[in-house]
């Protein structure tokens, strides 16, 4: 790591489960006329296609860059289409070109979207990414002048204030953000952090508990709860929170440090020493990794990687604006440019894939998601998206292979089992296997969608009673889902 000491953010290993949207605003896949004579297959298939496609498509298109933006990490060990490690002078030229390109785009956006709050936010984010906090704050404030209820902008302003140690100002902004959107991710934890920094530990705990409800698998939140409780001398509670952090991410070294302190405070010296030792070991490994990254050609690569990522992010932000205006040509152009700039940026491919799907170019869409699989072989969403589109293209065997891969990568997640079951049910094949898969999905994740698929499978396997029970469970979880109601009535009627 270089002298600027950008502290590596503690990465949360593993993805969070996908969010469900019951009323998606975009449908990426058109409904198709049923080819099967069965009314029930038709109904279930229609619901499945529309519902699933909408969920994944909307998720892909409208996922906030703030959620998916990652801190630059070490370059991938097998770069795909990645240019060779740059010489110093090549790096300089490329850096200059990238910045010029990015500045040009920001100007274009400002011109194309005058007095537009999203364009102003984009400009603010752009400046912020390049360390120009003063400019960033200016643009964010201009955005708030147009729409004072932008919780995301208040959040950004809060973070900027934290970065300069202006915690009271940060707390003010986070408070406003929370007032606007109490359930927004990534705000209560920041508020908690700011309160912690000024020694307001009781209040910090309250905010962090809210954050925990919103993001139950956030390592940072659990860790900070541990820290706040430690400061409040609630050592047992602190201990529990540190352990919860480690359940989510066993490599989160700060939690070991916290446990060492907590156990020491609880006068359990043996345990304190145990966790100190674990902390030291992990810390040593990380320090070693940092040293490798801070030497030789890695020094230039890291900066160039970070710069590419930053510039690509600006393109992704711009793309959203053009898409909202339905300027498909410009959206596609922007996304392609982003990919050219940062060829290993999966988010760029994801959005381009979603765009192609939306504009009826499924073959091209599949290609984009397959690129993601090449870059990140363990990215289950690329396979899920691929599978879904292959179904539209009636390439069921290929779709099956994609879903099987999801199960292989993430056997502890329900989604792979559920989608494969759904595929079988839609194609009226392997119904018994579909039933098993659906049951597995429910066992792993008793969500409405899992129960729905189970109901479908049970129904097609002749178990109407079981199907009825399953759809009722789905309705319990989503009582306003009219399609579930419809299915339930149909099954009830049949019974």
């Amino acid at each position, binding site marked *: 790591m*270089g002298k600027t000491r950008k502290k590596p953010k503690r990465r949360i290993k593993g993805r969070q489960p996908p969010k469900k949207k019951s009323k998606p605003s975009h449908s990426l896949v058109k409904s198709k006329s049923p080819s099967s004579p069965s009314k029930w297959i038709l109904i279930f298939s229609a619901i499945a296609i529309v519902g699933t496609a909408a969920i994944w498509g909307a998720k892909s298109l409208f996922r906030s860059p703030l959620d998916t933006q990652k801190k630059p990490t070490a370059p991938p060990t097998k770069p795909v289409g990645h240019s060779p490690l740059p010489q110093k002078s090549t790096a300089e030229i490329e850096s200059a070109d990238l910045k010029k390109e990015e500045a040009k785009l920001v100007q274009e956006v400002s011109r194309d979207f005058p007095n537009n709050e999203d364009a102003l936010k984009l400009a603010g984010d752009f400046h912020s990414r390049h*360390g120009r*906090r003063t400019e960033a704050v200016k643009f964010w404030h201009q955005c708030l002048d147009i729409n004072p209820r932008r919780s995301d902008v208040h959040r950004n302003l809060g973070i900027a204030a934290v970065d300069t*140690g202006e915690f009271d100002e940060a707390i003010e902004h986070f408070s406003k953000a929370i007032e606007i959107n109490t359930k927004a991710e990534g705000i209560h934890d920041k508020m908690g952090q700011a309160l912690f920094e000024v*020694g307001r530990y009781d209040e910090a705990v309250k905010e962090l508990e809210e954050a925990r409800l919103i993001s139950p698998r956030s390592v940072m939140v659990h860790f900070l709860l541990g820290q706040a409780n430690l400061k409040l001398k609630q050592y047992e509670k602190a201990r529990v929170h540190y352990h919860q952090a480690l359940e989510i991410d066993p490599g989160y070294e*700060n939690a070991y440090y*916290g446990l060492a302190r907590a156990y020491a405070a609880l006068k359990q010296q043996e345990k304190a020493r145990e966790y100190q030792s674990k902390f030291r070991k992990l810390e040593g490994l990380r320090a070693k990794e940092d040293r490798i990254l801070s030497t030789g050609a890695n020094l230039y690569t890291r900066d*160039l990687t970070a710069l590419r990522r930053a510039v690509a992010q600006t393109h992704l932000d711009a793309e959203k604006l053009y898409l909202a205006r339905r300027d498909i040509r410009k959206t596609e152009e922007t996304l392609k440019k982003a990919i050219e700039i940062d060829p290993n940026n999966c988010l760029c491919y994801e959005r381009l894939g979603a765009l192609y799907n939306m504009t009826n170019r499924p073959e091209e869409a599949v290609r984009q998601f397959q690129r993601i699989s090449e870059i990140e072989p363990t990215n289950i969403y690329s396979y899920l998206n691929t599978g879904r589109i292959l179904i539209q293209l009636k390439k069921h065997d290929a779709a099956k292979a994609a879903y099987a891969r999801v199960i292989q990568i993430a056997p502890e997640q329900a989604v792979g089992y559920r989608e494969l079951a759904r595929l079988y049910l839609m194609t009226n094949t392997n119904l018994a296997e579909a039933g098993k898969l659906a049951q597995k999905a429910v066992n792993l994740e008793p969500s409405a969608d899992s129960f729905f698929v189970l109901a479908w499978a049970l129904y097609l396997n002749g178990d109407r009673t079981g199907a009825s029970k399953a759809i009722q469970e789905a309705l319990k979880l989503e009582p306003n889902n009219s399609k579930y109601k419809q299915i339930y009535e149909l099954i009830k009627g049949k019974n």
Partner: protein
Amino acid sequence: MSRIILNTSRYMNSLRAKIEKTNALGHLRIIRRAAILLTLFYSAGFTAHAQAGIIFTDVTDQTGITFKHTDGSSGKLYIMETVSAGLALFDYDNDGDVDIYFLNGSALEGTKFKTEPTNALYRNDGNWKFTDVTKQAGVGDKGYGLGVAVADYDNDGDQDIYLNNHGPNVLYRNNGDGTFTDVTKSAGVGNESKVGAGTCFLDMDADGDLDLYVSNYIVFSYDIHVTMKMDGFETYVGPKSYPATIDNIYRNNGDGTFTDVTEESGISKHAGAGMGMICSDYDNDGDTDIFIANDISVGNFLFKNDGTGKFEEIALIAGVAYDLHGDEHGSMGVDAGDYDNDGLFDLYVTSYQSQTATLYRNLGDDMFEDVTRTTGAGSGTIPGVTWGTGFVDFDNDGDRDIFVACGHLLDNIDLFDDRSLYSQPNVLLMNDGNGRFINVSKKSGDGMKVRLSSRGAGFDDMDNDGDVDVVILNSRRESTLLRNDSNQKGHWLQVRLRGVKTNKDAVGAHIKVIAGDLVLIDEVHSGRSYQSHYGNRIYFGLGKHERVDRIEVKWIGGGVDVLTNVPVDKCLTITEETGTSR
């Protein structure tokens, strides 16, 4: 009749008008007087407010000090350019006032100077006038200065200088006549050719002479030199781009020579990126322990002395290796002082941008707690890079305040991070007496408005007026001298210790001063803060107490001397075994 009435009316009107005019004038006068009085009160109040608390005045221009630091840079961005240098405040000629020794950089590869820069010794002539006596004294070392410690290593009654350089180190023995001799070779403390950092003299084995701890920064040579980019801009790397290194410790043989005992002391097991350091008996067990501020590598070190000069590293267990989150900091400087007057030495460690300087409260039993947030001791330190620091009672009110010298080490930081600048104002944190610090940087006189890239800082009474002043070395620039002009100061006591059976400089000795309900402690250091040296005289602010009831001096490796009923507002020299011993 009517004429009379008319006349009367006119008269009455006239009278009324006159009265009214008089009244109006009277009112005006009253109002005017009131306004004047109010203005006077307001001004007095304002002035009083403005001059309340700690005030520093920048008196650099009147001192005659022309020293200007160079980092020896040539645009190649060598890492040591960013970390130079410390300074020393000490009485080199034993004339009763504090002189100044500035460290300087020198030509690095690719740099050529017409006149080679050297370190500089300025003799204090009194009344804030200083004379450059470098040449006469023979201390114009041309090496790349980084750290310095001062002490009477040979127990001959005058103070010697040790320089921890990038390159060979230097030991200047004071000849007692205003001149020094380079005795590095014969003493055996050249330390090869490393990148130096902080350095301290200490009596690690309580045998009456001063041993030497030499902290080293990184392993560096020109063929492994690298730079990096931030947002496309080329800039300096940090210590992680180079191998970590161990420090060295030398035992004084008592005959003017030293032996390298790094291995047998236990120090050699721990490699880091040493910067500032301090030797302090933090556990009050009668021997001197060592704290090393490591720059973003393995966390800080706390070497606990077993009394014989063998050390065990316990920083992690003690809670001073990292901050309260377990994150390592880019630690720079450190001071030890009892900020809460509980009889235990606490630690204050400065650090890099976006990291607060950290206050570790000593809890006893080898445990510390990071209390930065609850005490406000990190206020103002996040945007800057913080270096030299000291626990000093600037207003003599009986509790120790904190001064922090600031300045970024990346001279182009504003190109890719406008939260910070290369030149930064320093920070002053006033102790409110209740365990909290208030950032009074903007209210403490023009001396706190100086914006340079500061590094080493020293705190001593430069004008012998009873309060502690500040001397700062600024990277690539002239130095800064701040005169303490605080109003409403309390009583004070300054103590100079002279060892007899123990080391003559009394390095490592503990002093406890008791005045009524006020109990203050301090100890004598050689080398501290950011690679600097100051404070051979120990300063105690006594607030309203007009008498010191008791002074206890615990000599390292010696006994305890007690003095009672000591008058205040004076500088007292206590010689070992002249008090009531116990």
